[in-house]
């Protein structure tokens, strides 16, 4: 068995515990793993998919535009993430076996690690009409009792070169990796970082300088609507420098469909 990089190993383990359909590829787009939630969408176990030629696999995952028309290869989120090494988030159609088209959202992110290593991409699939069950939610995560889904998120985040935050359900920061510390200028200390505090410390606005309502922030959308969210914005950290970034927030949905918190990622955009 060829040894995969630790980042891929950790992402794969994480994906196996995550209830969100998740697909991981190498830099050429070759399938490395998809989890059981993807199996239930495409009706093919990963072990069987591993042996299929890429074209057959693409046929199984019958992605279309929302209206059912063909989607260009280059408009597929995973292809964008792989080729541009930037996140991609868009609504797609998925053709069912009865030829009806189901509307879904796909968020793809490139897997970029330290030393400028591009390792592949990860796509997550979301139901835009999902209605969260408040009973299934747990509130503040207690230190020392983090669920395995959160522990694994922290581990892969610690290896990636992408600035990443992990929050609990009320939005408290429970982990910030080193690239995020460099971006925000705020050093993560062991201990919770209340949402209200980081809202005061950092300034954000739209690209035109207009304010962004809290309910439209990617993190808020991820935590309240339980779908991924993605938007460009202007950000000013503790160093007082305004930067243009793209922020992507993924709800962290674990075993038993428990919403545990969110993973927020940031990409600086050249202006």
């Amino acid at each position: 068995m060829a040894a995969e990089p630790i980042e891929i190993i950790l992402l794969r383990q994480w994906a196996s515990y995550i209830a969100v359909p998740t697909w991981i590829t190498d830099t050429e787009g070759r399938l490395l793993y998809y989890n059981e939630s993807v199996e239930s969408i495409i009706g093919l176990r990963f072990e069987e998919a591993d042996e299929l030629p890429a074209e057959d696999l693409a046929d199984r995952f019958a992605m279309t535009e929302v209206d059912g028309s063909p989607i260009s290869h280059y408009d597929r989120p995973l292809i964008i993430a792989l080729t541009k090494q930037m996140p991609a988030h868009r609504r797609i159609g998925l053709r069912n076996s009865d030829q009806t088209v189901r509307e879904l959202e796909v968020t793809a992110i490139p897997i970029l690690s330290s030393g400028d290593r591009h390792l592949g991409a990860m796509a997550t699939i979301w139901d835009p009409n999902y209605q969260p069950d408040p009973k299934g939610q747990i509130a503040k995560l207690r230190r020392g009792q983090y669920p395995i889904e959160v522990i694994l998120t922290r581990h892969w985040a610690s290896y990636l070169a992408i600035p990443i935050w992990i929050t609990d359900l009320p939005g408290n920061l429970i982990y910030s990796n080193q690239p995020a510390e460099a971006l925000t200028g705020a050093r993560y200390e062991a201990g919770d970082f209340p949402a209200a505090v980081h809202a005061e410390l950092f300034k954000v606005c739209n690209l035109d300088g207009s304010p962004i309502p809290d309910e439209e922030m990617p993190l808020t959308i991820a935590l309240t609507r339980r779908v991924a969210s993605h938007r460009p914005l202007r950000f000013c950290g503790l160093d007082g420098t305004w930067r243009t970034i793209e922020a992507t927030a993924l709800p962290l949905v674990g075993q038993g469909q428990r919403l545990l918190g969110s993973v927020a990622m940031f990409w600086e955009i050249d202006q």
Partner: protein
Amino acid sequence: MRITLCGTRGSVGRAGGKTVRYGGDTSSVAVQGGNGSLLILDAGSGIANAHDLISPGVSRIDILLTHLHMDHIQGLGFFHPLYNPAIETHIWGPVSTTAGLASRLSRYLSPPLFPVRLRDLHSVHLHDVPPGLLSVPNFSVRADLVIHPGPTLGYRVEENGHSIAYLPDHEPALGSPTFDETSWLSGYSIIEGVDLLIHDAQYSDEEYRAKIGWGHSSYRQALSLARAAEVRTLVTFHHDPEHSDEELDRLHEQLRVEDPGLELVAGLAGAVLEL
């Protein structure tokens, strides 16, 4: 509590002249409570060695499965109480994100892998295990998901102020190689301060380096984890099928010399530990 190591081998059974003392049967541990109650941790081929521990007249046995890899369930179909209508057997185990325990376990307990179907075992009761406390009679049992490929649980069992933790397949070093941040340490919540930790110690340091991500720990990592979690006694477990008694003695002695402070117990087949 009386703990019997019924099967200690990992991955695949390895009976033979070189594995006499550490044993060739795969993972299974029997925990007897003060009132004769019986709890079994995993159902590898070693579970058959628990038959002699069943008290006459017992009406219920609980089996806690950490995960559904073959070396942890292959003995299940050969466990006599499953076919005894006078004994309720309650099997607890992890769910996946899309399937419950019954669906997952019946992949093994059905043809062509096994002649008897799970659904035909009428005295068997299945319980999906979420992280947290389980309603197991006579014991206090807590489960948590841990790092190992596929949904995998570790268990903490307490009775009368004594505690054991059982994590036969666990790779906490993945992503957290120095064990210094206990908040981010897989399994910590169930291992912390436990009297007896039965833990994966499948590899030597050198073997681990070649098998990162396979879901197991080295001897030294098991020891480091026990230290970080302030465990009183560590029992090495899930021995690699390629390791002879001689090799395991050597690994064990090496650690005992390096770290004489921790009580280190070799996971010998049939060993009985009292708390």
